């Protein structure tokens, strides 16, 4: 899956004819998601991470840019052809209370997508539903119950079973565990990881919780005001965060550590409004390292090393410095 320069803007109220105001929920995002991996997306509320997920599924039409899924441009599709791609992509939602129809039995909830998308006989469908409910760790009796009879964690399992029902290749999980207690959270995360292995799934895992994302992801993208500010493999992002925002996010997480005081990167204030984002680097209003340049120019996502990309001028110059030194080193070696 490849996403190129994706933009999703929502027109805001009070825009005049000929001069529209937009809320830039997703602003020029380019991403590649590889088969079988888990890409984590983190960001504060309002950073556009959920809209990104919805746009990929075409639940929201993108304003610009392209979404390429196995060599097919999804943004041009509609109707029947789009449907046929949708069954390869499924979504697990955040709210386990709001995403299951309270008037349907669990069995019907899981069966519904199968009915719509797969040509199976009634008996085959029933068998498949039974198989699925066991895969997610619930008993068959659950099929005849209604959603209100289950706890949050169990409902999230049902949501996962529904998403898996039509053999998707790609699952977008939008904050699947943030409504759950910690002890239940780990059960659901483990389940998701097991299922990934078993069905060779690709995940786009959206969350605001950096420690959860760290646990499940292979690579992590950090979003701020609709843009990706840093994308890296899990190891390099958490051990060597480069963007000041990533550093601040990591240092803001309360941790259990009595021995050493962590380095603190204080950031003040809150997320600026999406309708009127700061000119230049969107983060410069809160960044402790902001320079004159940051206020005027927008930094682009640049490759810093082979597993890390960052959109920050600080690393522009650093990158040059390090590459220069490595070049001089090379020259030295050669001579």
């Amino acid at each position, binding site marked *: 899956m490849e996403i190129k320069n994706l933009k999703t803007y929502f027109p805001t109220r009070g825009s005049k004819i000929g001069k529209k105001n937009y809320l830039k929920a997703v602003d020029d995002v380019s991403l590649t998601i590889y088969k079988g991996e888990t890409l984590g997306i983190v960001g*504060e*509320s309002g950073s556009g991470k959920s809209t990104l997920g919805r746009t990929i599924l075409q639940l929201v039409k993108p304003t610009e840019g392209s979404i390429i899924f196995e060599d097919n441009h999804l943004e041009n599709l509609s109707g029947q052809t789009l449907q046929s791609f949708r069954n390869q992509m499924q979504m697990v939602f955040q709210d386990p209370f709001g995403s299951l129809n309270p008037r349907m039995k669990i069995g019907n909830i899981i069966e519904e997508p199968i009915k719509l998308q797969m040509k199976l006989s009634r008996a085959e469908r029933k068998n498949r539903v039974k198989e699925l409910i066991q895969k997610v760790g619930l008993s068959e009796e659950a099929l005849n119950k209604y959603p209100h009879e289950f*706890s949050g*964690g*169990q409902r999230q399992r049902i949501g996962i079973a529904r998403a898996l029902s039509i053999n998707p290749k790609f699952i977008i999980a939008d904050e699947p565990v943030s409504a759950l*207690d*910690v*002890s*239940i*959270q*780990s*059960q659901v*995360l*483990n389940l998701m*990881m097991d299922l990934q292995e078993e069905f060779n799934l690709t995940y786009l895992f959206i969350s*605001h*919780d*950096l*420690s*959860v994302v*760290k*646990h499940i992801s292979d690579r992590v993208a950090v979003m701020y005001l609709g843009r990706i500010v840093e994308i890296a493999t899990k190891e390099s992002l*958490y051990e060597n965060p480069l963007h000041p925002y990533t550093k*601040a*996010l*990591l*240092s*803001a*997480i*309360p*941790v*259990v*550590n*009595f021995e050493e005081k962590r380095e603190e990167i204080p*950031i*003040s204030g*809150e*997320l600026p409004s999406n309708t009127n984002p700061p000119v230049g680097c969107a983060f410069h209003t809160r960044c402790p390292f902001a320079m004159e340049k940051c206020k005027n120019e927008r930094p682009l996502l640049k490759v810093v090393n082979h597993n890390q990309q960052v959109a920050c001028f600080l690393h522009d110059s650093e990158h040059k410095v390090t590459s220069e030194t490595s070049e001089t080193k090379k020259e030295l070696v050669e001579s």
Partner: protein
Amino acid sequence: MDVRVPTMPYDVAFLSASAWGSHDVSHVCDATRRGVFADASLRARSAFLIGGDWMHASQVEKNEETTLQKEVLLEVEDLRIYFELGRQKVAKAVDGVSFTIHKGETVALVGESGSGKSITSLSIMRLVPMPPGKLVSGSVKLNDREILTLPEKKMREVRGNEIGMIFQEPMTSLDPVFTIGNQIMESLLHHQGLKRKEAKNKAIDLLKLVGIANAEKVVDEYPHQLSGGMRQRVMIAIAMSNNPKLLIADEPTTALDVTVQAQILKLMLKMKEEFNSSILLITHDMGVVAETADRVLVMYGGQIVEEAAVKELFLNPKHPYTKALLKTMPSLDQNVDRLPSIPGSVPPAHSFPQGCRFAERCEFAFDQCKQQLPELINVTDAHKARCHLYSGFGGGSIV
């Protein structure tokens, strides 16, 4: 006609909450919160109308300076709050909770949803609607004064004056139809008997103190014009406006982003120092606990299952539930393939097992655990746990 107004508010709030006929505990709580705040604004206006009628009472308790750090501020003993669910079903939301809070101390109350931590905190403020709630037993003493039996009128002098409270949802706990200034001034007018102008100035000062940049402007704005973090700052300003001795913070940062959460927690600790008060912090986030609390109470199934100083609890947890809880936290420092998890889920409050409430999910459980509820006993001097492993039955095999 106006004179009758101040006598009714709380009862009205409670009546309307219970009149919904909702037997779901959390619904009632939400209703109460909303009810209380709707009532609060009513009170703001009536307080202004009636003038000095209630004012002098607030001067009585204007506090003595704290002398000893270890002085007891709040003492909760054997608190039991049950909810009748009809058909002889009783939810034991809080079932025999005892603890103390010393002056200047930050005590964290941790537990999963449904463990009874919010009801415990609400009952200290006497905000649990009764009925459907029922106080079965218990005493709550603030500075040696029993507050569970105070008449409602006296209790109103305690709320917001001696005990301040911050709620989880900064969106719903402020009244949308009153300005920020009005809502801060309300408790100043009520408890301190200030003039309106003085109160407004004090409100601006308070807003500055909680780190709101253009306080003069914000004071005349409405809640919807502020962000979540700012609203929580306003809530803190309201809670601290009368220098309360105890600040109860019920999940104050759960609805906020991490970067804002860090700011708010820092602010709370700063305010605690400034006003020399104590904090009862209710949370489910162990990271928050480790960074802010002095002492920790772990709740499970309506009871305290472990109590210890913060460092002791994290480095040397005793109760299997605490141990498991600490292990299941996804952490930034460690790399594990699979997170350890606790099987099963919290038993519902209306059908607790006869024995230990954690027994079903506990990896160390033995026969005794299923039959007899363990007592909260001292494992070491300042470390209590409610577990048979330490009560002599299990021979202390995992100590």
